[in-house]
């Protein structure tokens, strides 16, 4: 690194420009990572926090509309409950509704219909204020509902039906589904809302038989035999992660952001590779002199890669610092934005690692520089 440090200082303008490009890419990567995490949270944090390993939807349900179109009944639930490896099985209802808050403000909710006492129902430990599910029309809502001005004891009136739901508990943290706050509601009430029964009207008894899906939890250490269960209960079962694609817009949003990030990594690696290629070609004569002086290829390559590592680490860390700063400003805005340590660390490793790969591909030219060219007469 003797030569590398001195060259970094001597050509600081050139290295600064290249580092600036990498730093700006790092800023962009942080923003996209934050947006990505934010959208994932907004889309499926309600699902992620369920103690569920798989969902059994109605037979031949397409996954992208599973949560809105699928229906299952109690016979299928009974079949699933008997399957090997299934520790818990419960009905799960999902319905996006529009309503009005106590001050006539619009409130959108993703209703999660659960049977009181079942494994998917929120327990007392999940609740930071109020109680777990209680009463016919009591709901337990995501903490983010408080951003809408709703609190304990407030009532949400469902549009058209007039059903009044009262907030009895507030969950710890963000629980959202398809960018809408989750409200856990007792299964009976969910079934009435899902069937479109207006408040006070009589409902046919068969509506109380169905739900959207069967929530399954596997016994510890065992895998659920999905094929056997699906055959027995006539369902289509997907893992919890696969069910995320059923959240409105989720698959398209994450795919778009991932694609942009992949392109950014590729661009960054190419920029760094191109820079070091030009830099190495510029230094060809100096490298020849150093080799004539007896510097080994290994010595010169180590020097050049060390130099690339310094530039990459400094510019990535600086860019990410700026990105995290911007992100902190955004976090307090209504934008879905969440900075998480793990994806940021992965992004830093990728930027630096791929940059080094690009640099390595270029500085390989050092090995082909003939020390003979250092002698004037041989040029």
């Amino acid at each position, binding site marked *: 690194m*003797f030569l590398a440090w001195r060259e970094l200082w001597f050509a600081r303008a050139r290295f600064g420009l290249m580092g600036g490009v990498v730093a700006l890419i790092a800023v962009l990567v942080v923003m996209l990572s934050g947006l990505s995490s934010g959208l994932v949270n907004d889309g499926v944090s309600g699902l992620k926090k369920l103690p569920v390993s798989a969902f059994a939807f109605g037979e031949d349900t397409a996954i992208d509309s599973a949560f809105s179109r699928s229906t299952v009944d109690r016979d299928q639930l009974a079949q699933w409950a008997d399957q090997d490896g299934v520790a818990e099985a419960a009905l799960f209802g999902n319905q996006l509704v529009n309503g009005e808050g106590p001050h006539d403000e619009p409130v959108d909710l993703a209703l999660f219909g659960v049977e009181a006492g079942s494994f998917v129902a929120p327990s007392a430990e999940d609740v930071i204020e109020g109680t777990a599910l209680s009463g016919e029309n009591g709901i337990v809502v995501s903490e983010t509902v408080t951003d809408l001005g709703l609190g304990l004891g407030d009532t949400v009136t469902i549009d058209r039906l007039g059903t009044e739901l009262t907030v009895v508990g507030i969950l710890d943290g963000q629980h959202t589904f398809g960018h809408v706050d989750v409200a856990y509601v007792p299964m009976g009430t969910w079934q009435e809302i899902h069937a479109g029964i207006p408040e006070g009207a009589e409902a046919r008894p068969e509506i109380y038989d169905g739900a959207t899906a069967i929530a399954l939890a596997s016994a510890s250490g065992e895998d659920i035999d999905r094929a056997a269960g699906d055959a027995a209960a006539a369902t289509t079962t997907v893992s919890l992660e696969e069910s995320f694609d059923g959240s409105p817009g989720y698959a398209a949003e994450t795919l778009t952001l991932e694609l942009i990030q992949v392109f950014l990594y590729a661009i960054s690696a190419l920029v760094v590779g191109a820079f070091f290629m030009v830099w190495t070609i510029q230094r060809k004569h100096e490298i020849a002199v150093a080799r004539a*002086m007896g510097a080994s290829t290994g010595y010169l390559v180590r020097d050049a890669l060390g130099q690339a590592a310094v530039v990459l680490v400094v510019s990535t860390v600086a860019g990410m610092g700026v990105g995290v700063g911007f992100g902190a400003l955004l976090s307090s805005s209504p934008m879905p934005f969440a900075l998480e340590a793990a994806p940021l660390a992965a992004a830093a490793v990728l930027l630096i690692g791929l940059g080094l790969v690009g640099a390595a591909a270029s500085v390989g030219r050092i090995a082909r520089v003939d020390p003979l060219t250092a002698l004037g007469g041989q040029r």
Partner: protein
Amino acid sequence: MTNTAEQLAGRASRTTEGLALEHVSLTLGDGDSTVTALDDVDLTVPRGELLAVVGPSGSGKSSLLAVAGALIAPTSGAVHLDGVDVLALKGGRQAALRRERIGFVFQSGNLLPALTAMDQLRFALHVAGVRGTPGRDPRDLLEQVGMGHKAGRRPHELSGGERQRVGIARALVTTPGLLLVDEPTAALDRARSHEVVELLAAETHEHGVATVMVTHDHDVLEHCDRVVEMEDGRLSA
């Protein structure tokens, strides 16, 4: 193993210290267009001698330096440096030989632009892996070549003569046994040329270095101990 063998060889042949080329021939190019750059060259340069090689362009002077400096292997013949058979060494050991035993002085210095005069010398020591003991003190050496006051300057802040002085100091800082000098005065005026070659002669004599200097410049030959002429790859005294 290699080290011990070399050391033994070095000790066994104290009397043959310096550079010795025997029947060295070098053919460059391939197929139809081969050029005989060196044709059966015999040359011995003992330690403490400044040898000048003169001759027209393309006569093989630079090839002579390249072969002597282990930058290129001759087609046939033998090269010994301080009794060590240079051609018997593998590529990595040849690079080691260059950084430990051979100093190069290039045309117009060929200094590294990012380094100050002082760092040019320290880089040579760093490459050679010298940690203190065997190398010469870079500051003293810069003083001796009259560049002590410009130790912190980079090549673009130095004149041609100053660059050449730093280049000479860089070649000498690792205490080489062989100094190979390529057209040191090509970019210098007469007064500077004489200063530079006088400096080379003084260092050669004082530190017992075998020095081979390739030059076009007949003015500076008065400072050399011996002059050989090269034409079409052949040497004549």
